[in-house]
């Protein structure tokens, strides 16, 4: 420890250091036990000169406090903050879950047959619609299926390839053959 630094300890005791010097000095004290002991001795000298030493051991109070504080949490947090932490955490978790659910729904609804890159595009963030926390109700009465699939399904049900179980028109009944059924799920399968 240099003389200059020891002189700074003396200056710190007398509160004669600048604010910047104090901050630097306090940070150093945290890891320099010898400087801390010297600081304590300087304070003791001042107390002795001013006649402040009481009948008890000069270090009794500090040692008792050290023991008492060892049972106290390291960082006493402001009491007002604690009341809001749990509810805020709960809301945050709920919001994340809702966002993930909405995102997943939108991925399913916007993907189309043959549009191989649609899911990737969504994941890459190329979607233009902003994410919503609540799925808006479908007021158009339209099925949540893309137009190409609708057309395909119509043709399948009304064309000569419609199965006898899904035929819904006279025309399909007339022109139907024994072709296998094609469902919406099959239309979603990418090649």
């Amino acid at each position: 420890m240099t003389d200059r630094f020891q002189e700074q300890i003396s200056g710190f005791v007398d509160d004669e250091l600048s604010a910047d010097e104090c901050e630097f000095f306090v940070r150093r004290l945290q890891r320099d036990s010898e400087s801390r002991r010297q600081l304590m001795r300087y304070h003791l000298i001042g107390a002795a000169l001013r006649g402040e030493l009481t009948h008890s051991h000069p270090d009794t109070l500090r040692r008792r406090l050290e023991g008492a504080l060892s049972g106290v949490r390291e960082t006493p947090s402001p009491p007002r903050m604690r009341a809001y932490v749990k509810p805020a955490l709960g809301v945050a978790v709920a919001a994340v879950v809702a966002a993930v659910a909405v995102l997943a729904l939108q991925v399913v609804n916007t993907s189309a047959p043959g549009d191989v890159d649609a899911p990737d595009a969504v994941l890459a963030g190329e979607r233009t619609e902003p994410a919503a926390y609540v799925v808006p109700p479908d007021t158009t009465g339209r099925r949540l299926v893309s137009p190409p699939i609708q057309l395909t399904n119509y043709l399948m049900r009304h064309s000569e390839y419609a199965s006898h179980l899904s035929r819904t028109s006279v025309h399909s009944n007339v022109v139907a053959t024994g072709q296998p059924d094609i469902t919406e799920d099959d239309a979603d399968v990418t090649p």
Partner: protein
Amino acid sequence: MQSTERQVAEPGVKPRAGSGASDLALIKRVQQGDRSAFDLLVVKYQHKILNLIMRYVRDPSEALDVAQEAFLKAYRAAPAFRGDSAFYTWLYRIAINTAKNYLVAARRRPANVDVDFQDSEQFEAFTKMSDVDTPERLALTEEIGAAVSKAIQELPDELRTAILLREIEGMSYEEIAQTMECPVGTVRSRIFRAREAIEKHLRPLLD
């Protein structure tokens, strides 16, 4: 935090010089969770606070309990300290209130209450307190006072004057420099050398 003001003096004691920057730096560290910084504040003010409390609470061991409680309250309230007043002023108010509350509670307690040691925890706490302040430890305080007095008398005049103006009169370095008609740097050096010389007398007692 706001800029500091000079510490408000307790009655009968000259105000200490300085900007309060050292206390502010320490309390800021305490607010960041550095308990060792609070330890240094205790070291700085423990004697002053204890003497203050002893004006209200005569019994030394009870005064020690009250002082401990006051510092614990200060530690718990540290996050709320905004720097509107000097740290010592804030601590002084906590100590006064703690001492007054203690006196109010003491008046409510029955006068003749026998200490019942059937509770083993109470007994242990009592014996522990006795162990801390043994006759040897109590004698140490007197030895320290005697060693410091002797060391002061052996100091050269300029060093003795500088340190007494600082510790007893509470003057700032600037004020001491004007009084002794020397530069501030010389004052700083003289006070430091005086402390070094006194510390040499104390080291055998403290090691």
